Protein backbone atom coordinates (compact mmCIF):
# COMPACT_ATOMS: atom_id res chain seq x y z
CA UNK A 1 0.00 0.00 0.00
CA UNK A 2 1.09 3.52 -0.50
CA UNK A 3 3.19 4.95 2.24
CA UNK A 4 3.81 8.69 2.02
CA UNK A 5 6.87 8.35 4.22
CA UNK A 6 8.76 7.47 1.02
CA UNK A 7 8.08 10.96 -0.35
CA UNK A 8 9.24 12.80 2.76
CA UNK A 9 13.03 12.82 2.18
CA UNK A 10 12.24 14.42 -1.20
CA UNK A 11 9.51 16.85 -0.11
CA UNK A 12 11.40 18.34 2.83
CA UNK A 13 14.36 19.75 0.85
CA UNK A 14 12.02 20.75 -1.98
CA UNK A 15 9.80 22.72 0.39
CA UNK A 16 12.82 24.23 2.15
CA UNK A 17 14.34 25.23 -1.19
CA UNK A 18 11.17 27.05 -2.24
CA UNK A 19 10.85 28.73 1.15
CA UNK A 20 14.47 29.90 1.01
CA UNK A 21 13.85 31.84 -2.22
CA UNK A 22 11.73 34.27 -0.21
CA UNK A 23 14.54 34.99 2.25
CA UNK A 24 17.50 35.60 -0.04
CA UNK A 25 18.51 38.81 1.75
CA UNK A 26 18.48 37.29 5.23
CA UNK A 27 21.47 34.95 5.59
CA UNK A 28 20.70 34.06 9.20
CA UNK A 29 17.14 32.98 8.40
CA UNK A 30 18.49 31.02 5.43
CA UNK A 31 20.98 29.18 7.60
CA UNK A 32 18.36 28.33 10.20
CA UNK A 33 15.89 27.01 7.61
CA UNK A 34 18.62 25.06 5.82
CA UNK A 35 19.83 23.34 8.97
CA UNK A 36 16.34 22.62 10.25
CA UNK A 37 15.26 21.06 6.97
CA UNK A 38 18.46 19.03 6.71
CA UNK A 39 18.03 17.70 10.21
CA UNK A 40 14.40 16.87 9.44
CA UNK A 41 15.44 15.13 6.21
CA UNK A 42 18.07 13.15 8.12
CA UNK A 43 15.59 12.02 10.78
CA UNK A 44 13.01 11.07 8.16
CA UNK A 45 15.64 9.11 6.23
CA UNK A 46 16.64 7.21 9.36
CA UNK A 47 13.00 6.44 10.03
CA UNK A 48 12.48 5.36 6.42
CA UNK A 49 15.50 3.07 6.51
CA UNK A 50 14.21 1.52 9.75
CA UNK A 51 10.76 1.01 8.23
CA UNK A 52 12.19 -0.62 5.11
CA UNK A 53 14.40 -2.83 7.27
CA UNK A 54 11.44 -4.08 9.28
CA UNK A 55 8.63 -4.17 6.74
CA UNK A 56 10.37 -4.63 3.41
CA UNK A 57 10.19 -2.40 0.35
CA UNK A 58 7.95 0.66 0.76
CA UNK A 59 6.27 2.22 -2.25
CA UNK A 60 4.07 5.21 -2.92
CA UNK A 61 1.84 5.32 -5.97
CA UNK A 62 1.78 9.00 -6.83
CA UNK A 63 -1.71 10.32 -7.36
CA UNK A 64 -3.12 6.93 -6.44
CA UNK A 65 -2.49 5.50 -9.92
CA UNK A 66 -1.27 1.92 -9.75
CA UNK A 67 1.99 1.05 -11.52
CA UNK A 68 2.76 0.62 -14.38
CA UNK A 69 0.33 3.45 -15.27
CA UNK A 70 1.36 6.00 -12.69
CA UNK A 71 4.69 7.11 -11.34
CA UNK A 72 5.80 5.06 -8.39
CA UNK A 73 8.40 5.89 -5.77
CA UNK A 74 10.16 2.86 -4.39
CA UNK A 75 12.26 2.78 -1.25
CA UNK A 76 14.15 -0.48 -1.14
CA UNK A 77 17.07 -0.87 1.23
CA UNK A 78 19.65 0.19 -1.36
CA UNK A 79 17.84 3.44 -2.14
CA UNK A 80 17.09 4.12 1.54
CA UNK A 81 20.73 3.76 2.56
CA UNK A 82 21.75 6.14 -0.22
CA UNK A 83 19.04 8.62 0.78
CA UNK A 84 20.33 8.43 4.33
CA UNK A 85 23.92 9.14 3.26
CA UNK A 86 22.66 11.97 1.06
CA UNK A 87 20.97 13.53 4.08
CA UNK A 88 24.18 13.22 6.11
CA UNK A 89 26.26 14.82 3.35
CA UNK A 90 23.61 17.52 2.91
CA UNK A 91 23.66 18.45 6.60
CA UNK A 92 27.44 18.51 6.93
CA UNK A 93 27.81 20.32 3.62
CA UNK A 94 25.47 23.07 4.81
CA UNK A 95 27.29 23.35 8.15
CA UNK A 96 30.58 23.63 6.26
CA UNK A 97 29.15 26.33 3.99
CA UNK A 98 28.38 28.66 6.91
CA UNK A 99 32.00 29.57 7.41
CA UNK A 100 33.36 29.03 3.96
CA UNK A 101 30.91 30.14 1.30
CA UNK A 102 30.89 33.90 1.79
CA UNK A 103 28.19 36.55 1.96
CA UNK A 104 27.84 37.25 -1.79
CA UNK A 105 26.99 33.66 -2.62
CA UNK A 106 24.58 33.47 0.30
CA UNK A 107 22.73 36.48 -1.10
CA UNK A 108 22.42 34.89 -4.52
CA UNK A 109 20.45 31.78 -3.71
CA UNK A 110 23.23 29.45 -2.60
CA UNK A 111 21.14 27.65 0.02
CA UNK A 112 18.05 27.18 -2.21
CA UNK A 113 20.30 25.66 -4.87
CA UNK A 114 21.78 23.25 -2.31
CA UNK A 115 18.32 22.21 -1.20
CA UNK A 116 17.18 21.65 -4.80
CA UNK A 117 20.33 19.62 -5.41
CA UNK A 118 19.52 17.44 -2.41
CA UNK A 119 15.90 17.10 -3.59
CA UNK A 120 17.08 16.05 -7.04
CA UNK A 121 19.54 13.48 -5.72
CA UNK A 122 17.01 12.04 -3.29
CA UNK A 123 14.35 11.85 -5.98
CA UNK A 124 16.75 10.09 -8.35
CA UNK A 125 17.47 7.47 -5.71
CA UNK A 126 13.82 6.88 -4.88
CA UNK A 127 12.03 6.91 -8.21
CA UNK A 128 10.82 3.74 -9.85
CA UNK A 129 10.27 5.14 -13.30
CA UNK A 130 12.89 5.78 -15.97
CA UNK A 131 11.51 9.05 -17.27
CA UNK A 132 11.03 10.31 -13.75
CA UNK A 133 14.67 9.40 -13.17
CA UNK A 134 15.52 11.65 -16.11
CA UNK A 135 13.51 14.49 -14.58
CA UNK A 136 15.30 14.18 -11.26
CA UNK A 137 18.63 14.03 -13.08
CA UNK A 138 17.70 17.36 -14.62
CA UNK A 139 16.62 18.80 -11.26
CA UNK A 140 19.94 17.95 -9.70
CA UNK A 141 21.90 19.03 -12.76
CA UNK A 142 20.14 22.42 -12.96
CA UNK A 143 20.94 23.00 -9.30
CA UNK A 144 24.52 21.90 -9.90
CA UNK A 145 24.88 24.33 -12.82
CA UNK A 146 23.84 27.14 -10.49
CA UNK A 147 26.21 26.02 -7.76
CA UNK A 148 29.06 25.60 -10.19
CA UNK A 149 28.78 29.05 -11.75
CA UNK A 150 27.71 30.96 -8.62
CA UNK A 151 30.37 33.53 -7.80
CA UNK A 152 31.21 34.15 -11.43
CA UNK A 153 35.00 33.86 -11.39
CA UNK A 154 36.65 33.39 -14.77
CA UNK A 155 37.57 29.78 -14.10
CA UNK A 156 34.06 28.90 -12.92
CA UNK A 157 32.55 30.43 -16.05
CA UNK A 158 34.90 28.50 -18.32
CA UNK A 159 34.42 25.18 -16.56
CA UNK A 160 30.66 25.53 -16.26
CA UNK A 161 30.40 25.92 -20.04
CA UNK A 162 32.15 22.56 -20.45
CA UNK A 163 30.12 20.97 -17.67
CA UNK A 164 26.80 22.18 -19.06
CA UNK A 165 27.67 21.16 -22.64
CA UNK A 166 28.60 17.63 -21.59
CA UNK A 167 25.52 17.25 -19.43
CA UNK A 168 23.12 18.68 -22.00
CA UNK A 169 24.53 16.21 -24.50
CA UNK A 170 24.23 13.25 -22.14
CA UNK A 171 20.72 14.31 -21.15
CA UNK A 172 19.71 14.36 -24.81
CA UNK A 173 21.20 10.90 -25.15
CA UNK A 174 19.22 9.82 -22.08
CA UNK A 175 15.98 10.97 -23.69
CA UNK A 176 16.89 9.10 -26.90
CA UNK A 177 17.68 5.94 -24.93
CA UNK A 178 14.39 6.22 -23.06
CA UNK A 179 12.56 6.74 -26.36
CA UNK A 180 14.16 3.60 -27.85
CA UNK A 181 13.32 1.55 -24.80
CA UNK A 182 9.76 2.83 -24.79
CA UNK A 183 9.40 2.04 -28.48
CA UNK A 184 10.58 -1.53 -27.91
CA UNK A 185 8.80 -2.36 -24.66
CA UNK A 186 5.96 0.16 -24.35
CA UNK A 187 6.56 0.91 -20.69
CA UNK A 188 8.81 3.08 -18.55
CA UNK A 189 8.17 1.72 -15.09
CA UNK A 190 11.35 -0.08 -14.05
CA UNK A 191 9.65 -3.10 -12.51
CA UNK A 192 7.33 -3.45 -15.49
CA UNK A 193 10.27 -3.08 -17.87
CA UNK A 194 12.03 -5.91 -16.11
CA UNK A 195 8.96 -8.13 -16.43
CA UNK A 196 8.41 -7.24 -20.08
CA UNK A 197 12.03 -7.91 -21.01
CA UNK A 198 12.19 -11.26 -19.23
CA UNK A 199 8.92 -12.29 -20.89
CA UNK A 200 9.96 -11.36 -24.43
CA UNK A 201 13.67 -12.05 -24.07
CA UNK A 202 16.54 -9.60 -24.23
CA UNK A 203 16.90 -9.17 -27.96
CA UNK A 204 19.92 -7.64 -29.63
CA UNK A 205 18.08 -4.32 -29.79
CA UNK A 206 17.57 -4.24 -26.05
CA UNK A 207 21.23 -5.06 -25.49
CA UNK A 208 22.12 -2.07 -27.66
CA UNK A 209 19.82 0.08 -25.53
CA UNK A 210 21.49 -1.34 -22.41
CA UNK A 211 24.87 -0.17 -23.70
CA UNK A 212 23.35 3.20 -24.60
CA UNK A 213 22.19 3.54 -21.00
CA UNK A 214 25.69 2.62 -19.85
CA UNK A 215 27.03 5.47 -21.99
CA UNK A 216 24.45 7.91 -20.61
CA UNK A 217 24.92 7.04 -16.96
CA UNK A 218 28.63 6.60 -17.48
CA UNK A 219 28.81 10.18 -18.65
CA UNK A 220 26.93 11.34 -15.56
CA UNK A 221 28.91 9.09 -13.27
CA UNK A 222 32.33 9.58 -14.90
CA UNK A 223 33.47 6.12 -15.97
CA UNK A 224 36.55 5.52 -18.09
CA UNK A 225 36.28 7.05 -21.53
CA UNK A 226 33.57 9.50 -20.41
CA UNK A 227 35.19 11.04 -17.31
CA UNK A 228 37.26 13.73 -19.08
CA UNK A 229 34.89 16.54 -18.12
CA UNK A 230 35.12 15.82 -14.40
CA UNK A 231 38.61 16.86 -13.20
CA UNK A 232 38.37 20.39 -14.59
CA UNK A 233 34.75 21.02 -13.69
CA UNK A 234 34.97 19.84 -10.10
CA UNK A 235 38.08 21.91 -9.52
CA UNK A 236 36.38 25.22 -10.31
CA UNK A 237 33.75 25.82 -7.59
CA UNK A 238 34.54 26.35 -3.87
CA UNK A 239 35.30 23.35 -1.66
CA UNK A 240 31.85 23.21 -0.06
CA UNK A 241 30.26 22.80 -3.49
CA UNK A 242 32.86 20.32 -4.71
CA UNK A 243 32.25 18.24 -1.60
CA UNK A 244 28.54 18.05 -2.42
CA UNK A 245 29.29 17.23 -6.06
CA UNK A 246 31.99 14.69 -5.31
CA UNK A 247 29.96 12.93 -2.67
CA UNK A 248 26.59 12.96 -4.43
CA UNK A 249 26.46 13.66 -8.16
CA UNK A 250 28.64 10.95 -9.64
CA UNK A 251 27.10 8.50 -7.20
CA UNK A 252 23.71 9.07 -8.78
CA UNK A 253 25.16 7.89 -12.09
CA UNK A 254 26.64 4.87 -10.35
CA UNK A 255 23.31 4.18 -8.67
CA UNK A 256 21.51 4.39 -12.01
CA UNK A 257 23.94 1.95 -13.66
CA UNK A 258 23.56 -0.42 -10.73
CA UNK A 259 19.79 -0.17 -10.85
CA UNK A 260 19.36 -0.82 -14.57
CA UNK A 261 22.06 -3.50 -14.67
CA UNK A 262 20.61 -5.44 -11.73
CA UNK A 263 16.91 -4.96 -12.46
CA UNK A 264 16.29 -4.46 -16.16
CA UNK A 265 19.14 -5.61 -18.41
CA UNK A 266 20.03 -8.90 -16.75
CA UNK A 267 19.54 -11.47 -19.48
CA UNK A 268 22.69 -11.00 -21.54
CA UNK A 269 25.27 -10.61 -18.80
CA UNK A 270 28.02 -12.23 -20.84
CA UNK A 271 27.97 -9.18 -23.08
CA UNK A 272 26.75 -6.17 -21.07
CA UNK A 273 28.38 -7.01 -17.76
CA UNK A 274 31.65 -7.93 -19.48
CA UNK A 275 31.78 -4.44 -20.98
CA UNK A 276 31.02 -2.98 -17.57
CA UNK A 277 33.79 -5.05 -15.99
CA UNK A 278 36.43 -3.78 -18.38
CA UNK A 279 35.23 -0.19 -18.21
CA UNK A 280 35.37 -0.41 -14.41
CA UNK A 281 38.92 -1.75 -14.58
CA UNK A 282 40.04 1.03 -16.90
CA UNK A 283 38.26 3.59 -14.72
CA UNK A 284 40.26 2.39 -11.72
CA UNK A 285 43.48 2.49 -13.70
CA UNK A 286 43.01 5.99 -15.09
CA UNK A 287 41.75 7.25 -11.73
CA UNK A 288 44.87 6.20 -9.88
CA UNK A 289 47.15 7.46 -12.61
CA UNK A 290 45.52 10.87 -12.24
CA UNK A 291 45.64 10.82 -8.46
CA UNK A 292 49.38 10.12 -8.31
CA UNK A 293 50.20 12.51 -11.13
CA UNK A 294 49.03 15.80 -9.65
CA UNK A 295 50.33 18.14 -6.95
CA UNK A 296 46.98 19.92 -6.63
CA UNK A 297 45.14 18.91 -3.44
CA UNK A 298 41.68 19.06 -4.97
CA UNK A 299 42.73 17.33 -8.19
CA UNK A 300 44.12 14.38 -6.21
CA UNK A 301 40.84 13.92 -4.37
CA UNK A 302 38.90 14.37 -7.63
CA UNK A 303 40.83 11.56 -9.32
CA UNK A 304 40.15 9.43 -6.27
CA UNK A 305 36.42 9.81 -7.02
CA UNK A 306 37.05 8.22 -10.41
CA UNK A 307 38.98 5.33 -8.87
CA UNK A 308 36.19 4.72 -6.37
CA UNK A 309 33.58 4.67 -9.12
CA UNK A 310 35.58 1.97 -10.86
CA UNK A 311 35.72 -0.12 -7.70
CA UNK A 312 31.99 0.21 -7.06
CA UNK A 313 31.09 -0.68 -10.63
CA UNK A 314 33.46 -3.64 -10.66
CA UNK A 315 31.52 -5.04 -7.70
CA UNK A 316 28.28 -4.54 -9.63
CA UNK A 317 29.70 -5.97 -12.85
CA UNK A 318 30.75 -9.31 -11.37
CA UNK A 319 27.27 -9.55 -9.79
CA UNK A 320 28.12 -12.21 -7.25
CA UNK A 321 26.62 -11.75 -3.76
CA UNK A 322 29.99 -10.70 -2.35
CA UNK A 323 30.62 -8.29 -5.22
CA UNK A 324 27.25 -6.56 -4.87
CA UNK A 325 27.55 -6.31 -1.08
CA UNK A 326 31.05 -4.95 -1.46
CA UNK A 327 29.93 -2.32 -3.93
CA UNK A 328 27.17 -1.18 -1.56
CA UNK A 329 29.59 -0.93 1.38
CA UNK A 330 32.07 0.89 -0.78
CA UNK A 331 29.48 3.28 -2.21
CA UNK A 332 28.28 4.30 1.27
CA UNK A 333 31.86 4.61 2.53
CA UNK A 334 32.91 6.62 -0.48
CA UNK A 335 30.11 9.18 -0.16
CA UNK A 336 31.10 9.89 3.42
CA UNK A 337 34.86 9.91 2.95
CA UNK A 338 34.84 12.02 -0.21
CA UNK A 339 32.79 14.62 1.64
CA UNK A 340 35.35 14.62 4.47
CA UNK A 341 38.33 14.80 2.11
CA UNK A 342 36.94 17.74 0.16
CA UNK A 343 36.12 19.57 3.41
CA UNK A 344 39.71 19.05 4.58
CA UNK A 345 41.19 19.98 1.21
CA UNK A 346 39.10 23.15 1.36
CA UNK A 347 40.51 23.94 4.81
CA UNK A 348 44.09 23.43 3.57
CA UNK A 349 43.48 25.66 0.56
CA UNK A 350 41.93 28.35 2.74
CA UNK A 351 44.84 28.34 5.19
CA UNK A 352 47.63 28.33 2.65
CA UNK A 353 45.91 30.28 -0.10
CA UNK A 354 47.10 27.77 -2.68
CA UNK A 355 46.10 24.33 -3.87
CA UNK A 356 49.67 23.40 -4.80
CA UNK A 357 51.18 20.87 -2.39
CA UNK A 358 54.71 22.01 -3.17
CA UNK A 359 53.89 25.44 -1.78
CA UNK A 360 52.56 24.26 1.56
CA UNK A 361 54.03 22.41 4.49
CA UNK A 362 54.30 22.11 8.24
CA UNK A 363 50.65 22.70 8.98
CA UNK A 364 50.50 20.00 11.65
CA UNK A 365 52.05 22.18 14.40
CA UNK A 366 49.36 24.84 14.11
CA UNK A 367 46.48 22.72 12.84
CA UNK A 368 46.76 19.30 14.50
CA UNK A 369 43.05 18.43 14.28
CA UNK A 370 42.58 18.90 10.51
CA UNK A 371 45.93 17.16 10.03
CA UNK A 372 45.02 14.00 11.89
CA UNK A 373 41.53 14.04 10.41
CA UNK A 374 43.11 14.07 6.95
CA UNK A 375 45.39 11.21 7.99
CA UNK A 376 42.46 9.09 9.16
CA UNK A 377 40.40 9.96 6.09
CA UNK A 378 43.28 9.06 3.81
CA UNK A 379 43.80 5.74 5.55
CA UNK A 380 40.08 5.03 5.39
CA UNK A 381 40.07 5.93 1.69
CA UNK A 382 42.77 3.36 0.97
CA UNK A 383 40.87 0.69 2.92
CA UNK A 384 43.02 0.00 5.99
CA UNK A 385 41.19 -2.55 8.21
CA UNK A 386 39.62 -0.78 11.18
CA UNK A 387 38.17 1.95 8.98
CA UNK A 388 35.27 2.10 6.59
CA UNK A 389 36.93 1.45 3.25
CA UNK A 390 38.14 -2.00 4.18
CA UNK A 391 35.06 -4.18 4.18
CA UNK A 392 33.82 -2.80 0.87
CA UNK A 393 37.07 -3.40 -0.97
CA UNK A 394 37.51 -6.80 0.65
CA UNK A 395 34.11 -7.92 -0.56
CA UNK A 396 34.59 -6.43 -4.02
CA UNK A 397 37.88 -8.29 -4.38
CA UNK A 398 36.30 -11.47 -3.01
CA UNK A 399 33.50 -11.10 -5.55
CA UNK A 400 36.01 -10.53 -8.31
CA UNK A 401 37.96 -13.66 -7.34
CA UNK A 402 34.78 -15.74 -7.22
CA UNK A 403 33.86 -14.55 -10.69
CA UNK A 404 37.30 -15.51 -11.97
CA UNK A 405 38.37 -11.93 -12.73
CA UNK A 406 41.74 -12.35 -11.03
CA UNK A 407 43.57 -9.70 -13.03
CA UNK A 408 41.06 -7.00 -12.21
CA UNK A 409 40.81 -8.06 -8.57
CA UNK A 410 44.58 -7.60 -8.32
CA UNK A 411 44.22 -4.25 -10.05
CA UNK A 412 41.81 -3.20 -7.27
CA UNK A 413 44.38 -4.28 -4.67
CA UNK A 414 47.16 -2.47 -6.48
CA UNK A 415 45.00 0.64 -6.84
CA UNK A 416 44.57 0.76 -3.04
CA UNK A 417 48.32 1.11 -2.73
CA UNK A 418 48.41 4.06 -5.12
CA UNK A 419 45.34 5.64 -3.51
CA UNK A 420 47.14 5.39 -0.16
CA UNK A 421 50.21 6.93 -1.77
CA UNK A 422 48.17 9.85 -3.12
CA UNK A 423 46.45 10.46 0.23
CA UNK A 424 49.73 10.29 2.12
CA UNK A 425 51.25 12.64 -0.42
CA UNK A 426 48.71 15.24 0.66
CA UNK A 427 49.34 14.51 4.34
CA UNK A 428 53.15 14.44 4.20
CA UNK A 429 53.58 17.45 1.94
CA UNK A 430 50.83 19.50 3.51
CA UNK A 431 51.25 18.78 7.18
CA UNK A 432 54.82 17.60 7.70
CA UNK A 433 58.10 19.25 6.93
CA UNK A 434 59.21 22.86 7.19
CA UNK A 435 56.60 25.35 8.28
CA UNK A 436 56.00 27.71 5.40
CA UNK A 437 54.48 31.20 5.67
CA UNK A 438 50.71 31.17 5.55
CA UNK A 439 49.38 33.18 2.65
CA UNK A 440 45.66 32.61 3.10
CA UNK A 441 43.12 33.06 5.84
CA UNK A 442 44.34 31.34 9.05
CA UNK A 443 40.85 31.36 10.60
CA UNK A 444 39.20 28.01 9.94
CA UNK A 445 37.09 27.92 13.08
CA UNK A 446 33.86 26.06 12.46
CA UNK A 447 35.04 24.50 9.22
CA UNK A 448 36.69 21.52 10.86
CA UNK A 449 33.81 19.96 12.72
CA UNK A 450 31.70 18.92 9.67
CA UNK A 451 34.80 17.01 8.55
CA UNK A 452 35.16 15.59 12.08
CA UNK A 453 31.53 14.41 11.95
CA UNK A 454 32.12 12.61 8.66
CA UNK A 455 35.43 11.06 9.73
CA UNK A 456 33.84 9.88 12.98
CA UNK A 457 30.99 8.42 10.97
CA UNK A 458 33.45 6.67 8.72
CA UNK A 459 35.30 5.23 11.73
CA UNK A 460 31.99 4.12 13.28
CA UNK A 461 31.01 2.57 9.96
CA UNK A 462 34.27 0.63 9.87
CA UNK A 463 34.23 -0.47 13.50
CA UNK A 464 30.49 -1.17 13.54
CA UNK A 465 30.35 -3.18 10.34
CA UNK A 466 28.44 -5.85 12.26
CA UNK A 467 25.69 -3.31 12.86
CA UNK A 468 25.56 -2.14 9.23
CA UNK A 469 25.84 -5.65 7.78
CA UNK A 470 22.15 -6.70 8.00
CA UNK A 471 21.08 -3.52 6.19
CA UNK A 472 23.60 -4.06 3.42
CA UNK A 473 22.69 -7.74 3.15
CA UNK A 474 19.06 -6.80 2.70
CA UNK A 475 19.99 -4.24 0.04
CA UNK A 476 22.13 -6.81 -1.77
CA UNK A 477 19.31 -9.38 -1.68
CA UNK A 478 17.02 -6.99 -3.53
CA UNK A 479 19.68 -6.22 -6.11
CA UNK A 480 20.52 -9.88 -6.64
CA UNK A 481 16.92 -11.02 -6.91
CA UNK A 482 14.88 -8.53 -8.98
CA UNK A 483 11.67 -10.45 -8.26
CA UNK A 484 11.63 -8.97 -4.73
CA UNK A 485 11.54 -5.47 -6.23
CA UNK A 486 9.06 -6.42 -8.94
CA UNK A 487 6.67 -8.12 -6.52
CA UNK A 488 6.75 -5.14 -4.19
CA UNK A 489 5.93 -2.69 -6.99
CA UNK A 490 3.47 -4.70 -9.08
CA UNK A 491 1.89 -6.83 -6.36
CA UNK A 492 -1.63 -5.50 -6.72
CA UNK A 493 -2.05 -6.63 -10.31
Amino acid at each position, binding site marked *: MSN*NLVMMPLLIPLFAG*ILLIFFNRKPVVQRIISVLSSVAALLVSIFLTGTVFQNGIQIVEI*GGWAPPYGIVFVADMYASLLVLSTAVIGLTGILYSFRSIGREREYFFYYPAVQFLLAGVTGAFLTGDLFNLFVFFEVLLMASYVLMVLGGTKRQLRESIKYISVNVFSSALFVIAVAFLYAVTGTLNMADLSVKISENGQTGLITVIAVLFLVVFGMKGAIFPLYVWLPGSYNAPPAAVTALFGALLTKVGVYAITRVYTLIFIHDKAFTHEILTWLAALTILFGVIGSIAYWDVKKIVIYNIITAIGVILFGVAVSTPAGIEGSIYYLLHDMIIKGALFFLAGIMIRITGTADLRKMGGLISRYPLPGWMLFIAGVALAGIPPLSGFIGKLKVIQGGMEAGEYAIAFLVLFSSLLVLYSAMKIFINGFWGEEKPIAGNPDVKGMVYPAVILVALSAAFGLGTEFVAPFVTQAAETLLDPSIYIDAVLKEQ
Partner: protein
Amino acid sequence: MKRTNLKTNDLILQTTVNIVFFIIFIFSIYIFFAGHYTPGGGFVGGLLTSSAIVLLLLAYDVKTVAAIVPFNFLKVAAAGLLIALATGAGGIFYGEPFLKHAHGPVHFPLFGEIELASATAFDLGVYLTVVGVTMTIIQTIGETE
Protein backbone atom coordinates in the same frame (compact mmCIF):
# COMPACT_ATOMS: atom_id res chain seq x y z
CA MET B 1 21.49 53.19 -35.84
CA LYS B 2 22.48 56.86 -35.74
CA ARG B 3 21.89 58.54 -32.44
CA THR B 4 19.80 61.71 -32.65
CA ASN B 5 18.44 64.06 -30.06
CA LEU B 6 15.03 63.69 -31.59
CA LYS B 7 12.73 61.73 -29.33
CA THR B 8 10.95 59.00 -31.18
CA ASN B 9 7.22 59.03 -30.78
CA ASP B 10 5.75 55.56 -30.26
CA LEU B 11 2.15 56.74 -30.16
CA ILE B 12 0.77 54.16 -32.58
CA LEU B 13 2.70 51.31 -31.00
CA GLN B 14 1.75 52.31 -27.45
CA THR B 15 -1.93 52.82 -28.22
CA THR B 16 -2.14 49.51 -30.02
CA VAL B 17 -0.32 47.74 -27.19
CA ASN B 18 -2.70 49.25 -24.62
CA ILE B 19 -5.56 47.50 -26.36
CA VAL B 20 -3.85 44.33 -27.53
CA PHE B 21 -2.39 43.68 -24.09
CA PHE B 22 -5.81 43.02 -22.61
CA ILE B 23 -6.85 40.77 -25.50
CA ILE B 24 -3.72 38.64 -25.13
CA PHE B 25 -4.01 38.60 -21.35
CA ILE B 26 -7.64 37.48 -21.40
CA PHE B 27 -6.84 34.88 -24.05
CA SER B 28 -4.05 33.54 -21.83
CA ILE B 29 -6.49 33.21 -18.94
CA TYR B 30 -8.92 31.42 -21.25
CA ILE B 31 -6.16 29.04 -22.42
CA PHE B 32 -5.24 28.40 -18.79
CA PHE B 33 -8.75 27.36 -17.79
CA ALA B 34 -9.39 25.43 -21.00
CA GLY B 35 -6.48 23.10 -20.29
CA HIS B 36 -8.49 20.28 -18.75
CA TYR B 37 -10.70 19.51 -21.75
CA THR B 38 -9.00 21.18 -24.72
CA PRO B 39 -5.40 22.00 -25.63
CA GLY B 40 -3.92 24.55 -23.26
CA GLY B 41 -3.05 24.64 -19.61
CA GLY B 42 -0.67 26.29 -17.20
CA PHE B 43 2.42 26.25 -19.36
CA VAL B 44 1.07 27.90 -22.53
CA GLY B 45 -1.15 30.13 -20.43
CA GLY B 46 1.87 31.34 -18.50
CA LEU B 47 3.88 31.89 -21.66
CA LEU B 48 1.04 33.89 -23.23
CA THR B 49 0.72 36.09 -20.15
CA SER B 50 4.45 36.73 -20.19
CA SER B 51 4.30 37.51 -23.88
CA ALA B 52 1.65 40.13 -23.12
CA ILE B 53 3.95 41.69 -20.54
CA VAL B 54 6.86 41.47 -23.00
CA LEU B 55 4.74 43.44 -25.45
CA LEU B 56 4.40 46.13 -22.77
CA LEU B 57 8.18 46.03 -22.35
CA LEU B 58 8.61 46.60 -26.09
CA ALA B 59 6.26 49.58 -26.12
CA TYR B 60 7.45 51.15 -22.86
CA ASP B 61 10.70 50.90 -20.91
CA VAL B 62 11.62 48.58 -18.05
CA LYS B 63 10.86 51.10 -15.31
CA THR B 64 7.36 51.93 -16.55
CA VAL B 65 6.48 48.27 -16.84
CA ALA B 66 7.82 47.62 -13.33
CA ALA B 67 5.40 50.33 -12.18
CA ILE B 68 2.48 48.84 -14.16
CA VAL B 69 3.09 45.26 -13.05
CA PRO B 70 4.63 45.76 -9.62
CA PHE B 71 5.68 42.20 -8.82
CA ASN B 72 9.02 40.71 -7.91
CA PHE B 73 8.78 37.96 -10.52
CA LEU B 74 11.27 35.75 -8.74
CA LYS B 75 8.90 35.62 -5.79
CA VAL B 76 6.02 34.95 -8.20
CA ALA B 77 7.87 31.89 -9.46
CA ALA B 78 8.55 30.74 -5.90
CA ALA B 79 4.91 31.29 -4.97
CA GLY B 80 3.89 29.16 -7.96
CA LEU B 81 6.17 26.35 -6.83
CA LEU B 82 4.76 26.63 -3.33
CA ILE B 83 1.18 26.37 -4.61
CA ALA B 84 2.02 23.34 -6.75
CA LEU B 85 3.80 21.61 -3.88
CA ALA B 86 1.02 22.45 -1.43
CA THR B 87 -1.58 21.01 -3.82
CA GLY B 88 0.44 17.82 -4.07
CA ALA B 89 1.05 17.59 -0.36
CA GLY B 90 -2.62 18.28 0.39
CA GLY B 91 -3.42 14.67 -0.38
CA ILE B 92 -1.08 13.50 2.37
CA PHE B 93 -3.21 15.11 5.07
CA TYR B 94 -6.22 13.10 3.94
CA GLY B 95 -4.27 9.85 4.12
CA GLU B 96 -3.99 9.66 0.35
CA PRO B 97 -0.78 9.35 -1.66
CA PHE B 98 1.16 12.44 -2.72
CA LEU B 99 -0.41 14.35 -5.64
CA LYS B 100 -3.76 12.56 -5.32
CA HIS B 101 -6.18 15.06 -6.76
CA ALA B 102 -9.73 15.73 -5.64
CA HIS B 103 -12.54 16.98 -7.82
CA GLY B 104 -16.23 17.58 -7.49
CA PRO B 105 -18.99 20.17 -7.69
CA VAL B 106 -18.58 23.21 -5.48
CA HIS B 107 -21.41 25.64 -4.75
CA PHE B 108 -20.66 29.32 -5.29
CA PRO B 109 -23.05 32.07 -4.18
CA LEU B 110 -23.22 33.78 -7.56
CA PHE B 111 -22.46 31.10 -10.13
CA GLY B 112 -24.14 28.07 -8.62
CA GLU B 113 -22.65 24.59 -8.92
CA ILE B 114 -19.30 24.47 -10.69
CA GLU B 115 -17.18 21.37 -11.22
CA LEU B 116 -13.76 22.09 -9.73
CA ALA B 117 -10.63 19.97 -9.64
CA SER B 118 -7.61 20.47 -7.40
CA ALA B 119 -5.50 19.83 -10.49
CA THR B 120 -6.40 23.41 -11.46
CA ALA B 121 -4.59 24.66 -8.37
CA PHE B 122 -1.53 22.67 -9.45
CA ASP B 123 -1.85 24.25 -12.87
CA LEU B 124 -2.07 27.67 -11.26
CA GLY B 125 1.28 26.89 -9.65
CA VAL B 126 2.70 25.98 -13.05
CA TYR B 127 1.22 29.16 -14.53
CA LEU B 128 2.76 31.42 -11.89
CA THR B 129 6.12 29.67 -12.12
CA VAL B 130 6.22 30.04 -15.90
CA VAL B 131 5.27 33.72 -15.74
CA GLY B 132 7.76 34.32 -12.94
CA VAL B 133 10.66 32.53 -14.59
CA THR B 134 10.09 34.01 -18.06
CA MET B 135 9.77 37.55 -16.76
CA THR B 136 12.79 37.16 -14.47
CA ILE B 137 14.89 36.01 -17.41
CA ILE B 138 13.73 38.83 -19.67
CA GLN B 139 13.98 41.56 -17.05
CA THR B 140 17.41 40.42 -15.87
CA ILE B 141 18.83 40.35 -19.39
CA GLY B 142 17.10 43.64 -20.21
CA GLU B 143 18.55 45.45 -17.19
CA THR B 144 22.10 44.17 -17.64
CA GLU B 145 24.33 46.84 -19.15
